[in-house]
C-alpha cells in the first residue's frame, strides 16, 4: 500500500485549480456544464440547455441527476430529470418555478447564458424496462411531466408502433409543457393518444377535475394490462397508487416523486428523542421529523443533497439506536449501520457519528 506512485500523485483539487484558470468548465473532479440557452415552456416552467464540457452525460430516460449551483456561498443541489434524449450533446432540464424554491427561483430569475453549473451522476429506476413494453400508460401533473416526457419519448423511439396513452393534468391550458411537441408526436405515432386534462379549460368546456377512476374508464379502461408510469404531486401519486393497489396490479406501476418525505404527520404528537452527536460531543432532544432536521436545528451542518432520500449525500454512520426510514417504513436498529439522515426518524435514543 505504501507506494511511491501513491506518494507523488498530484492532488486532483490542485489540477482543477490550474484548469480553472484556463476555462471555468474544465475539471478533473466534477462535471461542469455551460448554460447555452433558456426556453420558456409555460408561465412557470423553463427549459435550460446545458453543454457538459466533457461530452454527453450517461443517463437513461426517466432518471434524474443532481444539478448544483452556488448561491450566497452555499452549494445547493436539486434533482431534475433531463428532458433531452440520452446521448445528445446538450442536456436539457425543465424546471418549474416554486415560489419558495431557492434553486428554481435562481434558475428562472437570475441564471444567464454562459453560467457554469455542476452536474452529478444520474440515478433512479423510473425507466423503461427491457424489452420495451408494447402498451403503456403515462399519468403526469405539474413538473412530473419532465420525467414522463422523457420515458414516453424513449418508449416511442424504442418501439415506433407502441400503444401509448398519456393523461396529463394541469391547471390551465397555458400550464401544459411540451404541448406542441406532444401533439406533433401523436401525428407521427398513430399509437399515441394524448389527453390534456385541465381544471380551467380555455374554451369553456367542463373542468376535467383531478385523477379519478372515471378518467381510466374513459381513456384507459385496460390500464391493468399497461405498464404505467406516474409522476406528479403527492396527491396524484397517492390516488393512483391506491387505485392500482385496489386492482392488485401495483407491480405494473412505476412512480417517481419529487417531494420531500415530510408532509403528513404533524409535529404535535411527535416525541422528542434524545440524539447524541458523538464527534460534536452534544446531545439534543428536539421534536423534528428527521435526523437531518434535528442535526440542523442543533446547529450542525452535515453534507446534504436532495433532502429526499435519493442522493445519499447525507449518509452517516449510526453508532447506536433505532430509526425508521420515512419512505420505506423499515426500522433499522443495527449498530454501526449507514443511514440517510434526511429520511430517517429516531424511534428512541440515537447516537450518530457526527
Amino acid at each position: 500500500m505504501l507506494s511511491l506512485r501513491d506518494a507523488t500523485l498530484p492532488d486532483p483539487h490542485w489540477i482543477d485549480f490550474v484548469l480553472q484558470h484556463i476555462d471555468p468548465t474544465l475539471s478533473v473532479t466534477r462535471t461542469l456544464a455551460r448554460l447555452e440557452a433558456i426556453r420558456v415552456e409555460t408561465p412557470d416552467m423553463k427549459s435550460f440547455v446545458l453543454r457538459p464540457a466533457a461530452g454527453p452525460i450517461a443517463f437513461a430516460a426517466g432518471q434524474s441527476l443532481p444539478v448544483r449551483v452556488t448561491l450566497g456561498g452555499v452549494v445547493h443541489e436539486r434533482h431534475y430529470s433531463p428532458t433531452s434524449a440520452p446521448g445528445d450533446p446538450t442536456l436539457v432540464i425543465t424546471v418549474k418555478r416554486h415560489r419558495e424554491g431557492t434553486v428554481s427561483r435562481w434558475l428562472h430569475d437570475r441564471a444567464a447564458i454562459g453560467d457554469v453549473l455542476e452536474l452529478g451522476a444520474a440515478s433512479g429506476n423510473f425507466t423503461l424496462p427491457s424489452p420495451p413494453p408494447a402498451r403503456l400508460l403515462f399519468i403526469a401533473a405539474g413538473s412530473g411531466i419532465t420525467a414522463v416526457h422523457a420515458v414516453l419519448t424513449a418508449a416511442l423511439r424504442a418501439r415506433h408502433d407502441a400503444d401509448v396513452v398519456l393523461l396529463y393534468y394541469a391547471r390551465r391550458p397555458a400550464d401544459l409543457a411540451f404541448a406542441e411537441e406532444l401533439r406533433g408526436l401523436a401525428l407521427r405515432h398513430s399509437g399515441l393518444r394524448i389527453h390534456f386534462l385541465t381544471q380551467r379549460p380555455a374554451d369553456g368546456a367542463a373542468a376535467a377535475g383531478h385523477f379519478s377512476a372515471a378518467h381510466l374508464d374513459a381513456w384507459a379502461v385496460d390500464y391493468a394490462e399497461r405498464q404505467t408510469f406516474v409522476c406528479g404531486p403527492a396527491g396524484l401519486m397517492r390516488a393512483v397508487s391506491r387505485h392500482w393497489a385496489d386492482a392488485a396490479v401495483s407491480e405494473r406501476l412505476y412512480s417517481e416523486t419529487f417531494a420531500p418525505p415530510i408532509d403528513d404527520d404533524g409535529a404535535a404528537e411527535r416525541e422528542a428523542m434524545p440524539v447524541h452527536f458523538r464527534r460534536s460531543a452534544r446531545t439534543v432532544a428536539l421534536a423534528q421529523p428527521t435526523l437531518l432536521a434535528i442535526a440542523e436545528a442543533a446547529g450542525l451542518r452535515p453534507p446534504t443533497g436532495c433532502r429526499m432520500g435519493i442522493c445519499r449525500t447525507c449518509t452517516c454512520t449510526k453508532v447506536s439506536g433505532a430509526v425508521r426510514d420515512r419512505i420505506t417504513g423499515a426500522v433499522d436498529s443495527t449498530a454501526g449501520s449507514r443511514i440517510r439522515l434526511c429520511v430517517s426518524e429516531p424511534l428512541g435514543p440515537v447516537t450518530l457519528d457526527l
Partner: protein
Amino acid sequence: MSATDSLPQVSGSRRSRALAAAECEAFGAELDALRSEVMASLGEDEAKYIRRVQAIVRYTEVGGRGLLFAGWLPPAWLAGTGLLAFSKIVDNMELGHNVMHGQYDWMNEPSLRGDTYEWDHACDGDAWRHSHNYMHHAFTNVEGRDRDIGYGFLRLFESQPWHPLHLVQAGVAVGLAALFQWGIALHDLEMDSVLRGRVPLEKLLREARPVLRKALRQFAKDYVVFPVLAGPACLPVLAGNAAANLTRNLWTFGIIFCGHFTADSETFPDSVLADESRGAWYARQVRGSSNLTGGRTFHFLTGNLSHQIEHHLFPDVPAIRYADMAERVREICARYGQHYNTGSFWSQFATVVARIVRYSFPTWSAAEPASAR
C-alpha cells in the same frame, strides 16, 4: 474554592469564580445564542473569504517553489523559502485546521468539507480529526483524556506525576518544536500508551498504515519530488523546503502551546465529564484556553487560533468571525466572573516556557497553588 463549584479543577490558576447550576445554564444559553446568531449570518462573505485563502495558499506555493528553482541566487532562495513557509503556515492554520473543524461545512462544497479535507502536513487528516477534533476539543484540558496536555511526554501541570526524564524536557520541547509536524503525525498513534502497555501493539500497527502513507507522501513531496524536478537546483530546493518546514513547525508550536499551557490555564479531573452541562462545558473551554493579542496580520498567520477561547467555544464557526465574537465573549465572561485569559504572544509564551522549566522538576509543596505568576 466553594463547595458548590460545578467545575472542580486539578491544577492551574483560580481566577474564575464558581458558577451555581442555574448561573451555569444561563452562561451556556448566552453563548449558544451568540453562536446561533453568527451561524445564521454566514454567507457570501465567508465563502468568498475561504476561497481567497485557498487561492493565496496555492499562488504562494507556486511562487515559493518556483523561486526556489532559482535557489542558487541567495535573494531567490530567501524569497522562495519565505513564500513557501508562508504558504504552509496559512495552509495548515487558517485553511486546513479550520476547514477540518467543519467551519465551512455549511457551504456544502465537497472540496471544503471538514471530514474529507487533506492538508500540506505530515499528519493524516483522519488521525488529526480523531486526536484533535475529538479527543482534544471534546475533552479539553481533562487530565487522562486530552492527550494534548504535554503530548504524552511533557509535564506541564503539577498534577501530572513527575519522572526523572522530565528533567530534560526543555530540550525535548525544543526538539518537538523543530519537528512539530512529525510529532503531530505520530501523536494519534499514542505510542507512549503502547510503551506503557496500556494500548495493544496490534492497534498501533493497524493505525500506523494511513499515518505512514501520509507521512511518506509529505516526505517524498518536499525531499524527493521537488528536489529531483529542480535538477541542478536540487540542493537549494532541498534546503529551502527543509527551512520552510522548520519555520512552519516553530511557528505552529509557539501558537499552539500558547493556547492551553499559559500560566492561567486550568486542567480538570475526569469526573467533570459525568453529566457535564452545556454551560459547564463552555466554562471548561474558557478556563482551559488562552488568547493572544495582536493585529490583523498576526491573527491571520495564527489561523485565528490567537482567539483560542472563541475557537474552543465555537470550533465549527468560521474563524474569521472570532475577532468580532471575542468582544461579546469577553463581556459575557466578565459578567459571569470567568477569567478571560489573554496577552501578547511574548508575555504568554514566556509563561509557557516557565511552565516547561518549572515542571521539569518535582513539585515539592502540594499546598502551593501551581502558577508561574
